[in-house]
């Protein structure tokens, strides 16, 4: 290798890194703006300086009960939950899309979200449950579905293609269960189930964010370790085997991580639509090949969630929509726009 070539390669690498840094910083800046908006906007008028005062009231001791309630009990937990659940959805989406080498293969399309949803609808309509028990049911549903898909796809190891096909089979069956339950229930229970299925941050509580935060703290280091095994996997199953990567172990580990993220996030806010699906492709398009885009997908997920929630709360005067109604529209519009403007190759994997 000549010196010139080496320099060019090094320069190209630097350019990629610079691009990745720019994307990351851009996303962080957008998140910051959205977070400030989330803290300032609301039907209970609070001036910006009062918001700040309220945020620091645990330290300063200067408090104003009504305002503190709005700022610390309503807006802050909602903001944190939006960021955490969005990041969790974004991450689990891109993990599945990368592992299965298919941009459509996010958990909300290959059955895992359907498992959570079917379990929740069953709890609401057949068992007459509400609240916490529905969340736990959904959590169990997601995990069970993921395990079932994996076991069914196992035949001397799993192939991405088989997981995807079995996943859509499972999704179809679970959707049928949901539809069937819908036609048998009384309208108010159908409404309750619908509201759960759409997913919302409306009842965000500090406790939800804490559970999700702990989940992330436990899972992220595991993810960091596992991701290093990915280079072999991305080349395809055969190549990966030949390279001697511990294909199954890495894949299983990553899937477990992704399922755990999906299950916890879904239990906290419901199966908020399409955040998992759009975050990966958006991150990849922004990165334009300058990296795998996992951290960026988490940031995109958080951004989609947060902005969608702002729109859901404030766009239509007099009506608050569930967050899940907007995430699909907002995230997907963004993705469509990227598809139109990006001149790069359409590869997502």
């Amino acid at each position, binding site marked *: 290798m000549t010196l010139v070539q080496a320099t060019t390669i090094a320069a190209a690498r630097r350019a990629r890194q610079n691009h990745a840094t720019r994307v990351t910083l851009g996303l962080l800046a957008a998140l910051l703006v959205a977070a400030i908006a989330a803290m300032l906007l609301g039907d209970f008028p609070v001036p910006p300086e009062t918001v700040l005062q309220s945020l620091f009231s645990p330290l300063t001791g200067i408090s104003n009960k009504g305002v503190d309630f709005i700022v610390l009990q309503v807006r802050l937990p909602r903001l944190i939950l939006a960021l955490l659940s969005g990041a969790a959805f974004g991450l689990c989406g891109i993990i599945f899309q990368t592992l299965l080498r298919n941009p459509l293969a996010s958990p909300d*399309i290959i059955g895992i979200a359907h498992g959570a949803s079917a379990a929740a609808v069953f709890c609401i309509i057949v068992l007459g449950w509400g609240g916490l028990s529905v969340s736990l049911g959904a959590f169990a549903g997601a995990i069970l579905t993921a395990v079932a898909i994996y076991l069914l796809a196992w035949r001397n190891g799993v192939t991405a293609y088989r997981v995807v096909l079995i996943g859509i089979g499972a999704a*179809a*069956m679970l959707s049928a269960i949901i539809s*069937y339950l819908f036609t048998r229930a009384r309208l108010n229970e159908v409404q309750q189930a619908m509201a759960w299925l759409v997913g919302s941050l409306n009842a965000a509580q500090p406790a939800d964010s804490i559970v999700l935060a702990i989940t992330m703290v436990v899972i992220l280091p595991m993810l960091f370790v596992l991701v290093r095994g990915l280079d072999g996997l991305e080349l395809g199953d055969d190549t990966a085997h030949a390279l001697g990567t511990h294909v199954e172990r890495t894949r299983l580990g990553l899937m477990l991580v992704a399922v755990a993220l999906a299950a916890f996030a879904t239990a906290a806010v419901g199966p908020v639509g399409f955040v998992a699906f759009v975050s990966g492709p958006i991150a990849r398009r922004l990165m334009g090949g300058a990296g795998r885009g996992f951290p960026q997908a988490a940031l995109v997920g958080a951004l989609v969630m947060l902005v969608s929630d702002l729109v859901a709360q404030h766009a239509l005067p007099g009506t608050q929509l569930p967050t899940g109604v907007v995430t699909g529209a907002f995230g*997907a*519009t963004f*993705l469509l726009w990227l*598809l139109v403007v990006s*001149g790069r190759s*359409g590869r997502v994997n």
Partner: protein
Amino acid sequence: MEASVVEARASRAAALGLGLVLLAVALITIILLSMATGARAIPVDMVWSALTAFDPNSTEHRIVWDLRLPRTLVGVLVGIALGLSGAVLQGATRNPLADPSILGINSGAALFVVLGVSVFGITQLSLYVWLAFIGAGVAMLVVYSVASLGREGATPIKLALAGAAMTAIILAVINAILLTSPRTLDEVRFWQVGSLAGRSMEIALQVSPFIAIGAALALLSARLLDGLSMGDDVARALGQRIGLSRALAGLAAVILAGAAVAAAGPIAFVGLTVPHVARAITGPGYRWILPYSMLMAPILLLGADIIGRVIAPPGEVQVGIVTAFIGAPFFIALVRRRKLAAL
């Protein structure tokens, strides 16, 4: 050597041709069964006399004539449309997950139905047909336009992404309407499942010309799909016009899927899985996959509908639910047993 290859090819064609004949026989059997079976037990000879000597005062005759006949006809038409559109879409996008519901066609249709119900208060099934049809067309047009913008045109991956994104947007709008309008939710929750019940002859007549045209287009596009399956670069090198092929196939798919969703509501599973089953039998090559899908899908659909009619007397279970319940385990078993040809 040469001769044996030709011979093998000929015998394979003969076997596949025989398979088609068997499927056709199975379809006819299922059609007859569909006329004779229902939530209400009607003796076969009475079914026959209803068809040959209709007596408007006989309850049984009215049921055969007003309910079972249109229902069977709609089932066959919708089955053909679903099977073909699924196969064509998977071929055109080269994605095993492509089906009308993922590419935005079903959701576009559903959106227009929901808007029709909530904004204009339309509740007649026969008007849903037109709404669904227009919605499917508009959605597919938008998806295709978005995907074909940009330098490299409508690549499979862009089509799939644009379709799924479109679905996401539309579902969001639908959910917003359903959540804020319980009356619409009440109306639509039954339509959304996908059902052949309550479909009148009028509906069968409305959609049949579209399905005929769509089916002809789809069958004619077999060669184009085979070209596309080699990858865009190879196909282009062989002189195929990629964009045109994909547009033609897409047109066939949207006509078929639009007609199907218009007549029976969004039945997701048939279009998705039947082509995979067909491919497992015939191997690659759309010359065979398309006719196999076209015959297998109505067998699955009508068979599921018959089961749905008798499984929960005195009621029925919607065909959309039964197809998923029968089809999914079968499909999963198939995926497990065979090494399916990747697209």
